[in-house]
């Protein structure tokens, strides 16, 4: 076990981006201190550590300046602890492909969840649900390609995209239940569905996935602080 009390993670349990970093810390057996943040009333520490975005997660490592942005934190951790459970593959082309899909997940796929929440009209919501379903089909294809018949995106064991996508499973189930539709299902995305069951019970992730009550609290906070847009009148 790589003992390291020098690592602190500012975050909140409900944030999938924070969960992502926790997943990597657990995989690499890195001890860390979790600094729980209340996003409705941000601490001085967070505002000082991430003045540009004021968001979690932020990694504090020894006496170095803080590092925000989950994907940047993951690559940093992978570089400073390269020998324990490497996250990114070593081949430059496969790395580029992994990074491409992480970019897709963060910039195209996941923002749809928030867009769904904030869209008031049924028609608008239906359009976004369609986009989520299309996105999940692309992710199914990506899984088939990367896993190459094995259990994870990373192959035999968890890799970069397992971490990048796996952290959203709590919210995926929440959104599915709340909006009465399936993003990942046995007909359209069978391999991805099997993968979600596998990753959900993975040693390194299962403690980091937030409980439904935590997500509900966070959802209510969002509904108040960033309410859905007003319906446009016809």
């Amino acid at each position, binding site marked *: 076990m790589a003992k390291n009390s020098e690592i602190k993670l500012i975050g909140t349990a409900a944030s999938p981006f924070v969960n992502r970093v926790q997943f990597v810390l657990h995989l690499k057996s890195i001890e860390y201190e979790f600094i729980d943040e209340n996003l409705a009333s941000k601490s001085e520490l967070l505002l000082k550590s991430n003045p*540009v975005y004021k968001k979690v997660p932020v990694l504090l*490592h020894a006496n*170095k*300046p803080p*590092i*925000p*942005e989950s994907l*940047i*934190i993951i*690559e*940093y951790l992978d*570089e*400073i602890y390269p020998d324990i459970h490497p996250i990114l593959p070593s081949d*430059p*082309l496969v*790395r*580029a492909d992994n*990074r*491409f899909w992480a*970019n*897709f997940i963060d910039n195209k796929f996941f923002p749809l969840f928030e867009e769904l929440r904030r869209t008031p009209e049924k028609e608008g919501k239906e359009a976004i649900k369609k986009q989520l379903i299309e996105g999940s089909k*692309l992710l199914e294809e990506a899984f088939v390609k990367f896993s190459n018949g094995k259990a994870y995106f990373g192959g035999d064991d968890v890799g970069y995209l397992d971490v990048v996508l796996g952290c959203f499973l709590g919210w995926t189930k929440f959104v599915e239940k709340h909006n009465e539709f399936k993003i990942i299902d046995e007909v359209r995305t069978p391999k991805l569905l099997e993968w979600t069951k596998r990753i959900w019970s993975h040693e390194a992730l299962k403690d980091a996935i937030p409980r439904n009550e935590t997500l509900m609290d966070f959802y209510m906070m969002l509904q108040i602080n960033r309410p859905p847009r007003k319906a446009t009148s016809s």
Partner: protein
Amino acid sequence: MVIRFLNSRPHIIYPHTSTPLTLRPHLRKNAVNITRNPTMAKQEQLVLLDYWTSIYGMRVRIALAEKGLSYEYREEDLRNKSQLLLDSNPIHKQIPVLIHNGNPICESSIIVEYIDEVWNDKAPLLPSDSYAKARARFWIDFIDKKLYQIGMNLYTKKGEEHETSRKEFMDCLKLLEGELGDKPYFGGETFGYLDVSLIPFYSWFQAYETYGNFNFDHECPKLIAWAKRCIQNKESVSNALPDLPKIFGFVQYMRKKFGIEE
């Protein structure tokens, strides 16, 4: 028409006897004829799908030049995208795309990091220190999230939206100026990844200044000095960036075309 960069200078080459580019099977049907370049390593074939005004494309051109790589430049018609582009980047259908030995790589930052990793024996772009790398990546992510869109608002929006964008744009430049500090380059003593990623925006500065109603020399002098230093000292930059008036002319043309009042 094919534009070929040999030793980083553009040459126009009209294909005559040429060998089809070796592409992976699903791309083979769109084989692009290129002239074999004797100075390129036997197995290396590089094609860049790009558009001359693209900030993101310029990043890749600079990175390729920094590494002394020869490649085929293909100018895309963005209103009528080539089958090669659609096949190489089916999800986003956007340039730039770098095709290396038949394998497409998309997204400019990902392409630049790829180039740096593969051709790691010369002109390193990313810093070797992990923290410095993280810091550079943070600012590039910031530039990509903010600067491009806000910059576009400067010449497409009016009224309150325009005013808000003006303020946001200047805030971004000031933050970046803060990150530069008194260093000659963002990379320190040497031109690096963040320099490569930001300098293409300079080619758009006449457009931003005019439509944003700024005076950059006055408002962010250190950044302007840095930009001029890059152009003066780095041939990779001066070759890759179109002249500022050309980009300004392009923006004027686009505004007229989309009916944005002068």
